[in-house]
């Protein structure tokens, strides 16, 4: 458990943050239903980091300690893995409370690494957190595919299509492989080939990362995800496969 106890005494507090999040969530996220049992905190790997735990965070929100919550770095150390809500007898949506707490800070004051990755994704239509362009992606995929078709003749017919209309599956791709270790894309292509799967990447929205979501920048998240989904829809694919 986090060690420092909550200091009470400020009667002017209005729990504005908690009430705002309650309005956003179905059933108010059950945010008023806490029994203070501590199941969330005892099973949370982030308990104790930044002198915080999920129960303490929720109590602070309930007590209207909005400024302290906004000042805490803990929402960036919680991965929103949902183990707390899974264990909670009252199904309190603490992860959504955390997500919204991230947005309490001005965008430019959020962690620079996440901010930079989101800004990279907004730079072009790839939505890649590493900033690779659609042209870069197409070049790498074609280059690697050609190399493997020649070197491993059993896979001479293997495909790694980009923008194939009417494919069954739209697959996105983490940027790490095309940018830093392209050979690691191949095993998945082989499996799809051997299974006879009709699939495609998209030239737009192929980047599988979603750092704008982690940044709690809703507009940017909507833009990048929307671009990827629109590309899948334009191609007429039936299923979107998120490899992240």
């Amino acid at each position: 458990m986090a060690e420092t106890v909550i200091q009470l005494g400020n009667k002017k507090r209005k729990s504005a943050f908690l009430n705002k999040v309650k309005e956003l969530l179905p059933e108010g996220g059950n945010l008023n239903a806490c029994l203070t049992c501590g199941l969330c905190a005892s099973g949370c790997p982030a308990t104790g980091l930044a002198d915080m735990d999920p129960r303490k965070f929720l109590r602070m929100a309930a007590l209207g300690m909005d400024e302290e919550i906004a000042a805490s770095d803990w929402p960036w150390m919680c991965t929103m893995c949902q183990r707390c809500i899974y264990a909670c007898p009252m199904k309190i949506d603490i992860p959504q409370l955390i997500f919204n707490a991230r947005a309490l800070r001005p965008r430019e004051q959020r962690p620079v690494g996440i901010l930079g990755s989101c800004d990279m994704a907004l730079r072009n239509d790839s939505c890649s957190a590493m900033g690779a362009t659609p042209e870069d992606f197409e070049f790498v995929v074609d280059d690697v595919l050609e190399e493997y078709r020649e070197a491993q003749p059993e896979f001479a017919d293997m495909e790694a299509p980009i923008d194939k209309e009417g494919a069954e599956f739209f697959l996105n791709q983490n940027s790490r492989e095309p940018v830093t270790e392209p050979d690691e894309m191949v095993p998945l292509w082989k499996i799809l080939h051997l299974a006879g799967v009709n699939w495609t990447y998209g030239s737009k929205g192929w980047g599988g990362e979603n750092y704008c979501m982690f940044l709690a920048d809703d507009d940017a998240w909507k833009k990048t995800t929307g671009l990827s989904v629109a590309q899948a829809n334009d191609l007429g694919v039936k299923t979107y496969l998120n490899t992240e």
Partner: protein
Amino acid sequence: MNSDWNKDLKIKFTVQDPCQIVRKSYGDPIAEDLRFVVKSVVGEENFIDMQPNRSNNYCCGGGGGFLQSGFKEERLKYGILKDRQIKDTGADYCIAGCHNCHAQIHELSEHYGGNYPVVHLWTLICLSLGVLGPNEREYLGEDLKDVNVFHPETAL
């Protein structure tokens, strides 16, 4: 697809249940699917589950943007639970089906000295199918670099 390649080697594997696909999306049934594939590939007798597991599994600490948040010390501390879970299985390898998990657990393995390789599931599927080339083995340990190699003459 079978596990014949591992019949005599008996290399042990555990698997990280990704929070995103298991607890947050499809629940225990997809965790069973994951185990079906893993056991088919490495052999049932060579698979060891972490405790706890499936929907009760602990997050590794790679999710939610933590990898890019700048709080490295805290992220590694978060991952102590995961590293201990993996070491307690006694497995030689940890399979990570999620990209963030792969990056985080790989770092935990090095940082806390376990030095267990962390491998993508696609690598092992292709290994068991006999179609994994010499240059597609970035995350395999030395014990598997030369096993069942497809077109070994293409090694770089």
